[in-house]
């Protein structure tokens, strides 16, 4: 089946979800990010790859970190970036989303980076943009957050070198997490040995097993012998929605403490997509400890977003052998 994220030549046009993408493409994203990650060592931390391109960050949902890393990634590629503030935008004044979109497109936009609280919003926008415009999903509802998943994969590859022999545990609110969904798809595509999900029954999808994961409701046994621990952020509204008794109770059962972490392999890395709730899903001693790679994930986010943006905007024509 054709994937609407890809061009007819199988190259990335939009980046909406990990689902349906093949391992070589995910590997190419990470390889490209690897090349961009050395940029920070230069006097000029910029390449002219997307000079003259216009990228609009279309954030219908707040996210300082994701928006900043997308903005920085675009600027390091020399693109012109505009952050479209939805609270003061025309949609807030009653204009339809498609009218807003077409107006922004009329400003010769080449790419939209979209974040929306509704699942499928990025795909909807991708279906309605002009053929030369790319759309990157920066998180939509409970559906997908593909660049976050890829920066997590990149972080794992940098520390572990490969995926095949790894045991990876994802801990927390899997049910509502677009990050977890994309992570599971990426880990499975990259051929990770074993994917585990750990959380209370109320925060795990009913069809969990069909995702090819092993389910645990006990943190200690779920962490036994794992190479990578990915903690998810617990959103406080889950407690108000009666899915959990209290933050304290959650921390007692599923909070990652130094003691619980000892069940994982001694060289296991601890990850978190941020922002972290200290003392709710993770102890400060672990978040700031030697096994934590949480801040590295943020740095890697820039390189991954540069990779995806350059691949999407670089696939607008056939690849040819360049000659000097």
């Amino acid at each position, binding site marked *: 089946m054709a994937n609407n994220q890809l061009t007819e030549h199988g190259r990335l046009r939009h980046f909406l979800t990990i689902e349906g993408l093949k391992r070589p493409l995910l590997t190419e994203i990470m390889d490209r990010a690897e090349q961009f990650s*050395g940029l920070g060592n230069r006097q000029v931390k910029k390449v002219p790859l997307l000079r003259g391109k216009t990228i609009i960050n279309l954030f219908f949902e707040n996210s300082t970190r994701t928006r900043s890393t997308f903005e920085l990634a675009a600027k390091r590629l020399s693109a012109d970036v505009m952050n479209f503030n939805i609270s003061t935008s025309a949609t807030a004044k009653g204009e339809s989303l498609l009218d807003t979109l077409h107006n922004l497109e009329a400003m010769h936009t080449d790419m939209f980076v979209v974040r929306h609280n509704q699942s499928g919003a990025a795909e909807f926008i991708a279906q309605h943009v002009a053929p030369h415009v790319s759309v990157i999903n920066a998180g939509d509802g409970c559906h997908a957050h593909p660049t976050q998943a890829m920066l997590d994969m990149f972080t794992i590859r940098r520390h572990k070198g490969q995926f095949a022999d790894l045991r990876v545990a994802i801990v927390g609110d899997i049910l509502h997490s677009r990050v977890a969904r994309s992570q599971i798809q990426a880990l499975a595509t990259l051929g990770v040995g074993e994917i585990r999900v750990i959380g209370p029954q109320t925060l795990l999808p009913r069809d969990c097993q069909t995702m090819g994961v092993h389910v645990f409701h006990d943190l200690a046994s779920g962490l036994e012998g794992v190479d990578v621990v990915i903690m998810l952020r617990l959103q406080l509204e889950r407690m108000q929605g009666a899915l959990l008794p209290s933050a304290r109770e959650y921390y007692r059962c599923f909070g990652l403490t130094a003691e619980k972490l000892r069940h994982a392999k001694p060289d296991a890395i601890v990850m978190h997509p941020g922002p972290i709730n200290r003392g709710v899903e993770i102890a400060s001693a672990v978040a700031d400890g030697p096994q934590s790679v949480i801040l590295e994930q943020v740095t890697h986010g820039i390189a991954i977003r540069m990779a995806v943006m350059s691949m999407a905007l670089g696939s607008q*024509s056939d690849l040819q*052998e360049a000659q000097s």
Partner: protein
Amino acid sequence: MTMPTSPADINALLDTMANAIREQFSDKRPLLVGIHTGGVWIAKALLKRLGDDFFDAPLGTLNIAYYRDDFTRIGMHPQVSPSELPFEVDNRHLVLVDDVFYSGRTTRAALNELFDYGRPASVTLAVLIARNGRELPIHPDIVGAEVTVAKGQHLKLRHENNSLSLIVRETEVKHGK
């Protein structure tokens, strides 16, 4: 001149280039930078002739893929090796090496990239072959040989069994271009 294609021809040109570099830079402690991929092969061959001590640091390599002026037209080769400059370029004399000098666009891109690392005192361009077809006001300083090839032909350096040779190829016609 006749086209220098064989490994023996190339070795003679490399000797000529090495002598020119030795003469020009004997008191300057220069730094050597090869442009991927053919330029790196040539730079390594020059390094062998001039000796490790001639240059002030290990060989630097430059991949100009991100600096080309035709990125949006041709996209990017998926396998791009990153640039690696194991030295500071500020106020240093650089010898920039490429295999074939043609339009001058690769050199322009390389210069742009080099200046994103710092401000060198000077950049000298050394190439194995300078061919016809220049499109920019840039030309090499040290040249192994100057050749003329027919329109529609291009030169490609080949690295096989530890020796370098040159082949002349017809430029492929791209569909729809």
